[in-house]
């Protein structure tokens, strides 16, 4: 699938930013997605694709966009890449993207993705990422703390931790319905993400090695994990609970 889509066709308007970069490698960015989804007989390769990160320009340094399709199997994400205007110097210039593949979330390995016609693609407005932006803003606020912020033994947040936490949050908020976590900083410089409702409690720590650990209790059923790469999602049951819950 290699369709060229002009953002104006998607009622997106003009991006008020100066430069766009896709997080990570273009060929394997964020989010679960199926490559070669037109060949259902083959096992689906899951990669990591996500939205895009708008690098700091004159505006908000952290804004995320993505294209979404809503299908029967849940939210589905189209992988997009900047087109010819990859480096946009004029903030008023419309940006053209190419859809290089269709990504599927909430799709299990081996399950046949449902190709969607392009007409069903809709632009997810900036506002739908408010939770992500809020979490990133909080993260940056915490990253400004210097050594000793919580006493003599406390340390600031390493840049590697900040990057890993951003990666996790971008991945987490691929679906805008996800419950927003409390974002905190530990005295050892790790980032804490914490969710608590009547149904669940989840504590997660992200370290400078780009790995995270977590403990979750969802309706009395516990799960945990150690040394998980920040670009890997929480277990499905935990994610599902976090997507179905309101605080």
């Amino acid at each position, binding site marked *: 699938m290699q369709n060229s889509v002009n953002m104006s066709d998607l009622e997106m308007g003009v991006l008020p930013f100066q430069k766009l970069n896709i997080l990570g490698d273009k060929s394997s960015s964020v989010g679960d997605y199926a490559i070669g989804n037109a060949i259902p007989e083959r096992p689906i390769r899951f990669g990591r694709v996500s939205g895009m990160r708008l690098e700091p320009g004159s505006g908000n340094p952290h804004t995320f966009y993505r294209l979404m399709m809503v299908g029967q199997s849940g939210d589905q994400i189209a992988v997009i890449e900047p087109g010819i205007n990859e480096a946009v110097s004029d903030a008023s210039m419309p940006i053209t993207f190419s859809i290089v593949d269709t990504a599927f979330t909430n799709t299990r390995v081996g399950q046949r993705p449902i190709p969607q016609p392009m007409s069903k693609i809709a632009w997810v407005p900036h506002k739908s990422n408010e939770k992500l932006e809020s979490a990133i803003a909080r993260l940056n606020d915490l990253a400004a703390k210097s050594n000793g*912020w*919580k006493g003599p033994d406390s340390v600031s947040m390493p840049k590697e931790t900040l990057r890993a936490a951003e990666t996790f949050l971008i991945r987490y908020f691929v679906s805008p319905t996800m419950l927003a976590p409390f974002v905190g900083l530990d005295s050892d410089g790790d980032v*804490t993400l914490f969710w*608590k409702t009547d149904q669940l409690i989840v*504590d*997660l720590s992200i370290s400078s090695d780009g790995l995270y*650990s977590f403990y979750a209790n969802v309706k009395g059923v*516990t799960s945990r994990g150690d040394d998980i790469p920040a670009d890997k999602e929480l277990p499905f049951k935990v994610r599902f609970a976090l997507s179905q819950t309101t*605080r």
Partner: protein
Amino acid sequence: MSMSEGIERLQTPVEDGEMLLRLVWDSHDLIADTLELATSAFSKNDLMGMDRGLSVDRQKLAVKSVIISLAEKQMAQVENNPAVNRTRPLLAKARTGDICASVFEDGSKIFSVIATPIAATATTPANPAHAEILNISGKSKKSDINEFRAKLQTLFSMPKPIDEHFPEPNTLSRFVSWVKAIYK
């Protein structure tokens, strides 16, 4: 018996019925929506094992002026850190018995609370109320620590201003119990 000798003798388990107070002075440790204590308020380094515990104060021995003094000292240590979101000192409360009742799925105990009074120094007053919540489980994987913090978070009450924990001026009876505890 000197004051310090008396203090050192008191490293004993705290009774289940006692209430414990945890000092909070950085609003980043509060959940904005609910004003509950967040898990980041519990230092992971304090939950790794028996060598070092999570500091609390035993309410029945706590003296308001001492807590305020300690809070001011801690806040002074970070006063040059512009990103610290200081809040007025708050105290969250938990019952010792509830903390000590925390168990893993296999039924093994996680925490013990011991009295660890602190002697006066040149800059801080003695704190006979000081106690520590210790991880006695022998487990310290990162996800274990996540579990410990999650459990503690549910046991501590919403932090409130210090005054609300000391509704009346420190009375003679509080002073007497303080002295008794030291020289027990």
